[in-house]
């Protein structure tokens, strides 16, 4: 070979590797997608949107790495321990006794749940935005779904961590409307007012873009968005809010496609998502056992004495809990709201893992409560309450009929919300907090001070994000 040939080969070799490398040094992964490229069409958009629902369901894996929806971990047991409806067979976990602090794991879980959902929603919104190949109507609906889910997350965060009942407060939540990158991780808290503005803004857009019914009941719809708005407003309780709650819930009850289940027990024990009462469900994995193991196998969260007394003379005392022998703790009132099988010799049932985020019952009760709070027509509220209780199998409405003041009736409505939504979606706890503080304490004596009505900001957030201030009454 000639010297020249060699030179040419060398040059070729070197230039080839140079030219090829720009692209190769930027090689993309094969087992994951890169932010910015993740949505290219309607199909990939729906996959990413499904990922937002994944966060909504708090999906993950159990201790054995089996894919599992862990909605129950953040939205069933914790709020119902706070409301005093459920207890913990392992003893005080800090939630039961209201002695939680910024390092309590349940507190961090609640915080992470909300922000996981927010960032997933923001990721969808950012990535779908530039994609033009998706039909406009489809894109609008998908964006509406993501906005609904973001509003839900922010509502949860506000209700658990913010001074939600004081619109003038500076203790709102960290509002994130951009996808997280290393440059925007650390953000301060927004005011409560700004938080409400953001949530309601998202909801208004969502309501406009959502269909009356989605393809599946575990995907959201406009009625659920309206019910969420009603939830948000009744907790804010600012002027005009209650009227709006009444209007929204009235709209849902009269114009929505949903109807109350004849007996509410059937929703949980036999029908599941087939029940027309379910407005938004959380779909479990076929192979998961998490909720069943917690509730039945370990009897981890038995019902409290207080719920047992609430359910005296209530047909629900036959199925919401049943006495069973725990191998570890002896006889316990096992929480069997989702479990239709033998409470002693337990075996998983079809519906034991199902979770329910929104049910029509809530619209009735929120309206009844809003009427009592806004000085409305108590008879109308009583009818709503009786309708709900009737569907629970109650026939004796003496105490409802006897409630002569708005305050007394509100207590009854709230008690029904606590019974109805125990271990379900946190509405038992949020309803309890809407009572005057003293009344609240009589129903849940574990509450000692008003500052513990909201959680502290988790310690890791304070230490890593220098811009966040702690809630009053808590140390970092």
């Amino acid at each position, binding site marked *: 070979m000639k010297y020249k040939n060699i030179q040419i080969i060398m040059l070729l070799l070197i230039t080839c590797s140079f030219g090829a490398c720009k692209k190769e040094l930027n090689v993309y*992964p094969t087992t994951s997608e890169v932010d910015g490229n993740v949505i290219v069409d309607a199909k990939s958009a729906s996959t990413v949107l499904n*990922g937002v629902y*994944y966060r909504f369901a708090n999906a993950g894996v159990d201790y054995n790495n089996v894919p599992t929806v862990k909605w129950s971990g953040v939205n069933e047991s914790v709020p119902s321990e706070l409301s005093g409806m459920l207890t913990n067979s392992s003893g005080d976990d800090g939630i039961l006794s209201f002695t939680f602090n910024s390092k309590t794991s349940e507190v961090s879980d609640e915080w992470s749940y909300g922000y996981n959902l927010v960032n997933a929603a923001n990721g969808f919104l950012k990535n779908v935005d530039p994609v033009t190949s998706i039909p406009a109507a489809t894109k609008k609906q998908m964006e509406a779904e993501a906005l609904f889910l973001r509003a839900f997350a922010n509502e949860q965060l506000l209700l658990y961590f913010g001074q939600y009942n004081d619109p003038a407060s500076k203790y709102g939540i960290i509002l994130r409307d951009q996808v997280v990158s290393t440059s925007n991780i650390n953000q301060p808290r927004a005011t409560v007012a700004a938080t409400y503005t953001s949530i309601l803004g998202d909801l208004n857009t969502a309501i406009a873009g959502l269909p009356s019914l989605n393809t599946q009941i575990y995907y959201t719809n406009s009625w659920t968005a309206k019910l969420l708005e009603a939830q948000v407003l009744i907790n804010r309780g600012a002027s005009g809010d209650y009227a709006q709650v009444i209007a929204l819930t009235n709209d849902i009850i009269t114009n929505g496609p949903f109807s109350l289940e004849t007996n509410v027990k059937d929703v949980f024990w036999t029908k599941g998502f087939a029940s027309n009462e379910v407005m938004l469900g959380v779909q479990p994995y076929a192979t998961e056992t998490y909720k069943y193991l917690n509730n039945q196998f370990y009897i981890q969260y038995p019902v409290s004495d207080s719920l047992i007394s609430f359910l005296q003379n209530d047909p629900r005392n036959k199925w919401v809990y049943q006495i069973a022998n725990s191998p570890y703790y002896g006889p316990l009132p096992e929480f069997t709201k989702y479990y239709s099988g033998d409470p002693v010799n337990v075996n998983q049932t079809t519906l034991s893992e199902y979770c329910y985020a929104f049910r029509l019952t809530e619209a009735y009760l929120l309206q009844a409560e809003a009427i009592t709070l806004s000085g409305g027509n108590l008879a109308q509220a009583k009818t709503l309450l009786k309708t709900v209780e009737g569907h629970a199998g109650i026939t004796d409405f003496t105490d409802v009929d006897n409630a002569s003041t708005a305050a007394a009736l509100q207590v009854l409505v709230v008690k029904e919300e606590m019974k109805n939504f125990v271990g379900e979606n946190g509405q038992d706890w949020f309803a309890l907090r809407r009572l005057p503080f003293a009344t609240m304490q009589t129903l849940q004596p574990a509450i000692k001070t008003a500052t513990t009505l909201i959680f502290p900001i988790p310690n*890791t957030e304070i230490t890593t994000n220098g811009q966040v201030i702690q809630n009053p009454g808590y140390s970092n």
Partner: protein
Amino acid sequence: MKFYAFIKAMLEAWLPPKLLLVMKLTTLLLIIALVQVSAKGYSQKINLNVRNAPLEKVFQIIEKQTGYVFFYDDNLVQHVTVSLQIKDGKIEDILNTYFKDLALSFNIIDQKNIVVKSKEESVLTKLAKYFTPATGIKGKVTDEKGKPLPGVTIIDKRTKIGVITDRDGGYIIQANREDVLAFSFIGYKTKEVKLEEKFTTGVYDGSNLLVNVSLEVNTSDLDQVVVVGYGTTQRKDLTGAVSTINTKDIEDVPFTTIDNALAGKAAGVQVTKTDGSPGGAVRIRIRGSSSFLGGNDPLYIIDGVPLQVQSNYINPGYDVGSPVGNDVTGAGGVNAGLSTSFVNGLNALGGLNIDDIESITILKDASSTAIYGSKAANGVVIITTKRGKKDMKPQIFASYYTTVSTPITPKVLNGDQYRTLLTEAAQNDYDARTAAGLPIPANVNAILNSPSTFFGTANTNWIKEVTRNTVSNNAEVSIQGGGNSSKYFSSISYNTTPGVVDGTDYQRVSGKINLENDISSKFRFITNLIIGYTNQDIGDGAYGQAIKARPDFAPRDALGNYTDFSSVGASYQGFQNPAALVSATNNAKTVSLLGSISALYDITKDLQFKSTGSLNLQQYNQRNYTPSYVAIGTYNGNASTGGIGSNSNSTTTSWVIENTLTYTKKINDKNSLNVVAGQSYETDKYSYFSATGEGYPNDNVLTSLSSAITPLIVKGDNPTSPQNYLLSFYLRANYTYLDKYLFTFTGRSDASSKFGPNNKTGYFPSGAIAWRISKENFLKDVKWIDDIKLRGSYGLTGNQNIGNQMYRTLYSPYSYAGSSALIPTQLGNQSIKWESSREADGGLDISLFNGRLQATADYYNKQDNDALLSLPVAPSSSYASVLSNAVGIKNTGVEVSLDGDIIRTKDFKWNASVNVTWNNSVVTKLPPTADLGQLGDLTGLEYGNTTLVKGQPLGLITGMKVVGIIKNQAQLDAYKAKLSPFWAQYLQPTLGIGDPMFDLDPTTKFPNMSEVIGHAAPKYYGGITQGFTYKNFDLQFYFTFSQGGKLLWGDHIASEEFSGTANANVSMLNRYTPSNTNTDEPRLLLGDALLYKSNLDLFNSSYLKLRTLTFNYHFNNSVWMTRAGMKNVTLFASATNLFTITKYPGNDPETSDDPYSVTGGYFDVSNYPTTRTYSIGIKAGF
């Protein structure tokens, strides 16, 4: 100049330096007297550097340099050529030393004329010649590479008649059958040939007997060629810290893998075999650890193909319980039986046969490693394998050895001891509980009240039950040779090593092919292939179970089923029948291929171009089946229904295309230059597939995946293109001035796909200076000094051995409601950059007494300030952490190695060498919030049990600190007063005399569970070799040692107190009792003692181990060998692990739980026993 003659003549035995000084004068006088010149001598210095130069020309050079004039007959010097390398030589020495083998005599006349004559034949010679009928002996003399050597002197030792080879290396001489011919040539070793033997085989060329001879180059250690990055150099020209390993020392020792054979062989290289599993993994660190996430194994370059060590183990999604693992971590539910066995049992270098290796070089400092830039921070091990030889008839080498292996096992309680101690533990607990008014647990009642039903009747030695003595075999054949323009080497070896634990086996077939072709005088082509296949049955921790198995249980019950062990402890403690575990299938097969094709072109005499394409391929196949009667561990207890099994495979492919230009130029006498510039392009691809299923119809036949009824896990990735790329440019320049001042500059730029757009490229410069102080005027005349060299280097190396795509924000696929879902799972940090180590090295190389004593010392300081670690970020980001260059680690150390021939006589030689390394790795930067859970922890035993603390060395073990044993009521009361009442009342109500007192947390007054209880890293370590050669016998002792380290002996934790009712080590016999109060071990308290690792379980792991003892006998050439066609035969025997001097009470102080971990590796988890082996073998050349 050097006085070889002086050394050879006078220094047959070791002489003290003082005596040497005295003798120096005498010798000088002698030499002067011998030289036939006036005593004045000549001051002119002669410098010569010629190769195969005509003698006439050499005379001319000398004439020019000295003014001497040679007088000679042209015929006399015609065809005589010489190779000489002389610096500042004197004429008399040249004539007497270098020219003495020529058949010429030199007489210096009048201090300016030299008369050259033929050496005169003596009268006797003439007579002998006259009377003896001689045969013509004819042949050709060549060098090692087969090139003809003109000018070789051939002298018949009897007649003293000599001839000289012609231009083509040919000669002809008359000699008798009983004569011996001596072939000598300057720069080559003299070779003697007994003609008797040649006459027997009798190959004739016409009437002349044909005797061809090849001469070996006579090089001193300083001229020894050392392989370095992208080239070779001579030892004397090295500027960096480089160790070489004599491959002769590691041949034919049953170490199986090369990394294992490196232990104690080179300073600065720490090698720990993780356990005794055959062919298993080795923990190897060169100058400590430098990365948290990136792995700390050195980069291996095998025949130019880079290989980064990693474990091929694919987690099948389940594991089996590991009782010792539970004890080590202090937590139940540790299921690491399978993972520990695989991580320790697989070795990425397993496909390479040690006996194929030609040379091993270990590059340690930044100057020598920087040419490998981004992969070099952990040091580089360059391995070159054997190649063919030019103009060499095919030579076959065969070797075979067989090895007997026996396990070295610990002593555990026998049936009677077990019954006694368990009863004592139950009685103590009964008493303590009665005193505290507590109910009596069922098992305590059962042991005390119905021992006959509680205890089994057997007396099983479980260790014996699952271990065995084995015989293994190793056979290999290689063929080497070459013609005029091509050469070849190929080999194949087969090794089968049944493991000393039942159900474990190791088999390997490994081979290589090397072909080199000269297409033209300037163009060469080299093909090299190394292929390895290993087939391993790895096991799942049966041995670890055996040391805990109840001796009163028989292996099988009355029905012939494996005895159920579920009553031994809670399900999360994972006790199982060891015999049942042995019946599981846990197989791994690895095919590895290292192949390369290179083209070399000599553009000019000084400039060479080389282009290489190479492939490193690893094909791994893993099969697991755990029968239905073996419990697999999960959080909720046994989850296996009807057996569980998996099939996994993976393929790792790395391609490298490399082009280098090498320029070597001796500009003039004073300046020489060597420059290597190159470019490389590298890609890596990893594909894998793994499926796990459960529910099998039976446990013996239908155990393949297709028989499973429930699929559990399916995972895999098989990308079409590589997942990462590396594009590099590099340059190294060596400049030597006066052969005295040496300078090296190395630079490399690496662009990697692993980093963000602004940080893809890393630059790794380094420089080194060396000063051969012995070449200075004030030392160069000191004759016993061969070389003294001072070295200094500084440079930057990198590490990119981290995951791909770490800089991007990623979405990962999951599913929700039966549809795919994409979730943001990784927050990318675009600003992450290369981890870089700054290393300074200062070294000293000394060679004295003609290479009889050699010493090297180095000090190094290696600082890594920007190692990668994920640090926690605000959880409101929805991410837990983000990767950043946030941590630092520093290694400082001193390495010393000495090598000397203590005795060197003709028949007897005693060589000794020793090397020691003091290394200290300190964490210099580590945010306290960092979650150490992300560090490599393949076996799952490190996290939470070791820790890293800023300012502290690596190897911290955490646990409880026992301050003493409570020996009387006063101590008990005092301890209770300090202890939190809650603890005393609820957590340890049975606290009493004989229990340990723990160091308490000042705020909670609870015993502190995670104190740093020990610094486990050794202070220094190294190796000692003692070699003896007597005539045909070689004997070599090879010791390794380690001093100042600590090991956490896992089995001791549950041998302080019973874990469940499992068995314990005999160390339990030393427990506290009222009659044995002078002990560190607490009393036995069944079920109520705190079973947690503490400083009581931490033991000094210093040791001195006779790692191998080898013995060789080389047969003299004899008739039977000739008849069998053998050229040489050696018998050899070796033994490993003959004895260990240590205070460590466990099984073996040289052990590690995880070869890859940065934080740990200092747990003795009793996964596999160490073995002692005895081998015997034979090696023959045909």
